[in-house]
């Protein structure tokens, strides 16, 4: 009697979560498992054929473009985001500080079509900045094109930069003024303080920021698609073209490409979560 009651108590409350788990099963787990299985089977047999095909130079180029774009925007985002964040938190004008944080908050949510279009307006071949630079003798075109990887890098920074600012501000606020003073008293220069004290302390936060920014740009599609169509060869653009059936190839190939992308992104997100949990615990 006692035992059965305990048993009852242990699993019955889980039933209340059933709708939620069914949702997760129906729209997350099952679709994903189907895709994994489909990428690994041909005519009912286990095969790595599609992964071998995914390693074709054609797709390797898409992967390397995506990796390059993600690394660049993440690196630039981390470096400039941290600098701007430091400028923001050391500003004495509280009003300006709040406005800048709010602006970052709002802009991280920008992306996709409207953002891409805004960059065409300012940096397209007849864009405002393009014309302005031409006026002072700098000809952007044809060496630079907004519809290219370097163009995309600038556009992505529009949401990467504010994201990094929001991520790093708590860690920057965690740097104690006394540490700086102690370093100076011991004869260090401000530069030495940053390189030998502050940056090593910030390192886990910078790395986790890098990983999140990397994943953020790795999985991005809408901005790139609006800005460049299929001009720029990114892996998400390739997968989307396969889904829409614009390119006639084995559907399983799209599955294999998706699973590889998924693994890359998952590794970043897991790394980010692990690092940020660690730094959070370290502070508590």
């Amino acid at each position, binding site marked *: 009697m006692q035992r059965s009651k305990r048993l009852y108590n242990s699993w019955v409350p889980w039933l*209340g*979560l059933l*709708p*939620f788990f069914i*949702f997760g099963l*129906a*729209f*997350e787990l099952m*679709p*994903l498992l*189907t*895709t994994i299985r489909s990428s690994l089977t041909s005519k009912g047999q286990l095969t790595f054929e599609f992964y071998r095909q995914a390693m074709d130079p054609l797709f390797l180029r898409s992967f390397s473009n995506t990796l390059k774009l993600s690394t660049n925007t993440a690196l630039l985002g981390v470096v400039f985001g941290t600098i*701007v964040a430091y*400028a923001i938190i*050391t*500003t004495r004008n509280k009003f300006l500080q709040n406005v*800048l944080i*709010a602006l970052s*908050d*709002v802009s*991280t*949510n*920008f*992306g*996709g*079509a*409207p*953002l891409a*279009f*805004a*960059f*065409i*307006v*300012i940096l397209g071949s007849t864009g*405002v*900045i393009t*014309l*302005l630079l031409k*006026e002072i003798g700098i000809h952007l075109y044809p060496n630079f094109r907004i519809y290219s990887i370097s163009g995309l890098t600038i556009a992505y920074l*529009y949401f990467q*930069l504010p*994201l990094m600012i929001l991520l790093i501000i708590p860690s920057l606020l965690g740097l104690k003024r006394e540490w700086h003073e102690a370093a100076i008293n011991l004869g260090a220069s401000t530069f030495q303080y940053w390189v030998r004290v502050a940056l090593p302390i910030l390192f886990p936060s910078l790395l986790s920021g890098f990983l999140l920014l990397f*994943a953020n740009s790795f*999985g*991005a*599609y*809408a901005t790139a*698609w*609006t800005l460049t169509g299929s001009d720029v060869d990114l892996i998400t653009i390739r*997968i*989307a073209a396969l*889904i829409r059936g614009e390119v006639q190839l084995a559907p399983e190939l*799209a*599955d294999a490409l*998706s699973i590889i*992308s*998924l693994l890359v*992104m998952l590794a970043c*997100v*897991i790394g980010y979560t692990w690092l940020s949990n660690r730094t959070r615990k370290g502070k508590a």
Partner: protein
Amino acid sequence: MKPQAVWRTSVIFVFLLFMIVPVIATFMFSISTRWDRTLWPEGLTLEWWKAVTSRGAFFLTLKNSFLASFATMLCLLALVTPTTYWMKLRVPKSKPIIEMVTTFSFGVPGVVLALALIRFYSKIPLPIINHPAILVAACMVLSLPFMYRPLVNALEAIDFRVLTEAAQSLGANGWSILTRVIIPNIMPGIINGCLLVFSTVFSEYTLTNLLVGTRFKTFPIYLVEYTRQDGRQASALAVISFVVAWITSLLIILVTSKGGQKTTHLAGR
């Protein structure tokens, strides 16, 4: 000024310029007669705004975007509110699994989610492929964390256990505890979650494009179509998207500053 102050001011100035110029320029572009030969617009006009808002497709796509956003919001509310409350109250052990389900979309690129849904639902006899319903389901997956986080934060901020026991001792049943005691107490979290979900779904492009395509045109789909046809009218549409995003974000800041924690979110990539 001290060199440090100069450095700080110029960094902030450049940052502000980078963040604001694209938006201002898009707006100016949408009210210019011509602005592709000269440094300043050749003239100002409201023609493009009139043209773009006089089309039926404009209101239809706006309506579709609002529909998708509200449907996602309501379905998520119905799914997540009871679940988080029940999890906190009775099954705290389930938290890691629940959080895995909610953060699924952080680790899965939009195109991969779309592909996986198509693969699975084209195999089973459930006619939701190409139907707006699958878009709502996909948007729910995408915006789950934005509904879940504020709700959990709000629940943790109130004494939900004491409230539940008090209501129970007064004879309330589970349903009325949830709807009449818990929900009113976590309202700021609910509103915050709804706004985050709204701004995510309203600007959603990837899933819409791949799952329903032209069968259910939303505002971002319409905008991308226009960027390839008429730049000036597209700029008016882009300005509308910016304004919607700004208003929602300002509301979120307003709600969160009055209590409750904020949740950063990523949308529309």
